[in-house]
């Protein structure tokens, strides 16, 4: 009997078909990987199983019985537990208190009883935790163990783990795999969401590959290999389009060397990133989200300073400069999140002028006329559907992104850091932004394109760098990009 069977699952968010007619089965006592890149639909599918979302169509069977799960509480009742990337523990409480939180049947238990209960569970399941430890003193790996025990304490027979190794150091990963294997032998069934081929091949029994909301295929580990999986994960027609080598590419003008960013406990969020970009070239940085793109963007745009390494534009070191100084040095930047990188309460013209106020100041006062005229020019040039005095927050996503782009380009930068430039935009706005980026390239601007949309990178980049676990795993010229090469790099196996 199958532990979980999901049949014909459909889920649409607005215009996006997150899951299309997905069939997924989990056998008893297996570790089953859900493999796919960003937006494939893995997390959506599991959120449906866990009751966070409700599927538009489809049926779910648990242990052969049809169930209708409309909340995590019901999912837990049906024996499904989930450990997410962002832990839901209360840092100021102890391990034992966290584990019994919401599950004490309304009785007031003493600390001793709670801790004994948790210690018993810890022994029973072989998941090693210290019931009296305070959560905020625990390492990430230890916290994850608490989350796992929390699920088991609620009698989960099916455990969903969403990108569990994203926050672990290698030693902790080994401990995790060892625990999972042991638990599975004792009767647990595990769904393991991941994009990391090495891990998937190491610990999983079967693999289901999702792409664009659909199931590409479900295979047994023994029947496949990394190359095949990589192809299944990222194969698409866009790989087939042959690109002409670009005539605009000149000399290297922007160079990163050994950029490293250390986080808590010495964990390397970015590890020795090095690449260079030439004038008239677009270097695309692809990768599954969560591998350091966000942090790399923050370092390139000046919001974070790297722990070590250098960034040079035309030989001038800029890695430790503030965002304003980086802009002065000739680097145009678009923010990863346009809502964070702009000021909604200010007007369109004020936002456009904010980066180089000095140009718009006359006799110590703001030259409102000049700001408005400049804004009108940009509005015309970038086809922004707004007037200069509109509050920025009132603009649609596409128009806001155009403002962001207009501002980044307003100082005629030599280098442009374009971060997730078309995220959340409709087809028209997306086309405009991409066209604009290509135009800038033609004019000799060196562009670093960070995008979680592989199609976008394939369409625009001259060379494709793949980021994985904070490192650049490889840089491939666009003409040589194949699903195997890129997929393997993105999944850590290149």
């Amino acid at each position: 009997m199958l532990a979980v069977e999901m049949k014909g699952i459909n889920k649409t968010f607005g215009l996006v078909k997150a899951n299309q007619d997905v069939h997924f089965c989990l056998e008893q006592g297996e570790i089953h990987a859900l493999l796919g890149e960003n937006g494939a639909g893995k997390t959506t599918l599991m959120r449906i199983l866990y009751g966070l979302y409700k599927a538009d169509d489809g049926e779910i069977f648990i242990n052969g019985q049809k169930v209708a799960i409309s909340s995590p509480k019901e999912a837990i009742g049906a024996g499904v537990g989930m450990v997410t990337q962002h832990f839901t523990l209360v840092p100021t409480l102890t391990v034992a208190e966290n584990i019994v939180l919401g599950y004490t049947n309304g009785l007031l238990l003493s600390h001793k009883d709670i801790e004994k209960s948790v210690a018993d569970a810890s022994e029973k399941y072989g998941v090693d935790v210290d019931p009296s430890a305070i959560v905020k003193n625990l390492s990430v790996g230890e916290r994850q163990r608490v989350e796992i025990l929390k699920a088991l304490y609620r009698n989960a027979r099916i455990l969903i783990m969403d990108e569990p190794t994203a926050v672990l150091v290698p030693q902790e990963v080994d401990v995790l795999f060892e625990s999972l294997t042991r638990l599975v032998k004792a009767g647990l069934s595990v769904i393991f969401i991941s994009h990391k081929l090495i891990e998937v091949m190491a610990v999983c029994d079967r693999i289901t590959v999702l792409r664009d909301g659909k199931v590409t295929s479900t295979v047994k580990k023994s029947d496949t290999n990394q190359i095949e999986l990589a192809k299944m994960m990222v194969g698409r027609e866009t790989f087939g389009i042959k690109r002409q080598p670009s005539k605009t590419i000149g000399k290297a003008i922007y160079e990163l060397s050994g950029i490293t960013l250390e986080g808590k406990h010495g964990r390397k969020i970015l590890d020795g990133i090095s690449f260079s970009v030439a004038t008239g070239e677009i270097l695309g940085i692809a990768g599954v989200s969560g591998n350091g793109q966000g942090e790399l963007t923050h370092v390139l745009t000046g919001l974070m300073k790297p722990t070590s390494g250098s960034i040079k534009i035309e030989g001038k070191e800029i890695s430790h400069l503030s965002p304003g100084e980086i802009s002065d040095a000739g680097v145009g930047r678009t923010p990863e999140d346009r809502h964070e990188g702009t000021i909604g309460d200010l007007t369109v013209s004020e936002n456009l002028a904010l980066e180089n106020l000095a140009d718009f100041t006359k006799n110590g006062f703001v030259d409102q006329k000049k700001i408005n005229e400049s804004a009108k020019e940009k509005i015309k040039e970038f086809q922004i559907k707004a007037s200069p005095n509109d509050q920025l927050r009132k603009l649609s996503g596409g128009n806001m992104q155009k403002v962001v782009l207009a501002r980044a380009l307003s100082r005629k930068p030599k280098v442009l850091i374009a971060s997730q430039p078309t995220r959340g935009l409709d087809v028209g706005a997306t086309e405009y932004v991409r066209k604009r980026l290509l135009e800038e390239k033609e004019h000799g601007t060196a562009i670093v394109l960070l995008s979680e949309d592989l199609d976008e990178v394939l369409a625009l980049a001259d060379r494709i760098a793949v980021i994985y676990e904070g490192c650049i795993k490889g840089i491939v010229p666009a003409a040589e990009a194949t699903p195997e090469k890129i997929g393997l790099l993105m999944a850590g196996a290149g």
Partner: protein
Amino acid sequence: MVKFKIERAAAPFWTKTLIPIVAVLVTFLITSILIVIAKANPFAAYYHLLIEPLSSRFSLLEVLVKSTPLILTGIAVAVAFTSGYFNIGAEGQLYAGAIAAAWVGSTFVNLPAIVVIPLMMVLGFLAGIVWALIPALLKIKLKVDEVVTTLLMNSIMVYVVSWLLNGIWRNPETGAQQSPEFFEAARYVKLAARSRLHLGLIVALVVVAIVYVLIKKTPLGLKMRAIGASKVGAQFAGINVNRTMLIAALVSGGIAGLAGVGEIAGIHYHLINELSNGYGYTGIIAATLGGLNPIGVLVAALFIGLIGTGSLNVSMALRVPVYLGDIVQSTLLLVTLAMLLLQNYRIKRI
């Protein structure tokens, strides 16, 4: 059964002008209940509260006198809040300015008014800055919450003033806790005969004008509005958030210091423990009611001054407790805050 759903939606443009008016009406509705419980006629109460103070020359001038410190503390708070720096310490900064003024006003006996008055204002402004400096630096360097630190500085100042007035500034003859009397030249000139109206009002109005121009028309003002609206967005655009916030915090302290100078040099002529009747805190109310716009703050401060004067009338005429004024003020603030929040939601039938 009819079901309702509450959802977020952008506030329509007409709410901005309507909110103050509706807030006032709702406030009066609520406080009417209390007035009725106190066995008085609400309409009579509001007449005494709002209309009567404006009906005689003396009374009108008193309203202006009461409003003067509030205009300054209101502007001080508005400048800080606009930049996202929540300065709750205007009260202490006010006293800091008063202390500086008290020193100047009793020491430099031989200087003419034309030197001493500006000197007093400059030192008062600087004293306010000094008192605002520590919380500002703690916020910028160590991210310590300024609400807590500025508030605590107020408590410290209470004791500093008490220490001064018990020690070096205790009147040697009478033993009274007051600093030496200001000499003539150091006193703010009176603006109108037979009233308490003094130069402080002119100072306040000039500050309103300066701050208005600063916030709306200078690059620094734009930067302050930017960091107040979105620290990350401002940082991304290259604005030095820490420096701008520091300037805002210190200017705020300085303006509050000027409020203290005004009360001492315009009304009391010596430092006393009860120089301020919570003007620093009331300034927060004025700033919020005025929507952080300098002109709005001016109007709000005048309104609060009006209510403050009127509540004495009400209590005398109708035997309603004099706290009515405070209650109206606080209710108005709460209602305004509630409306500012609620304007972003709609109730829909489903």
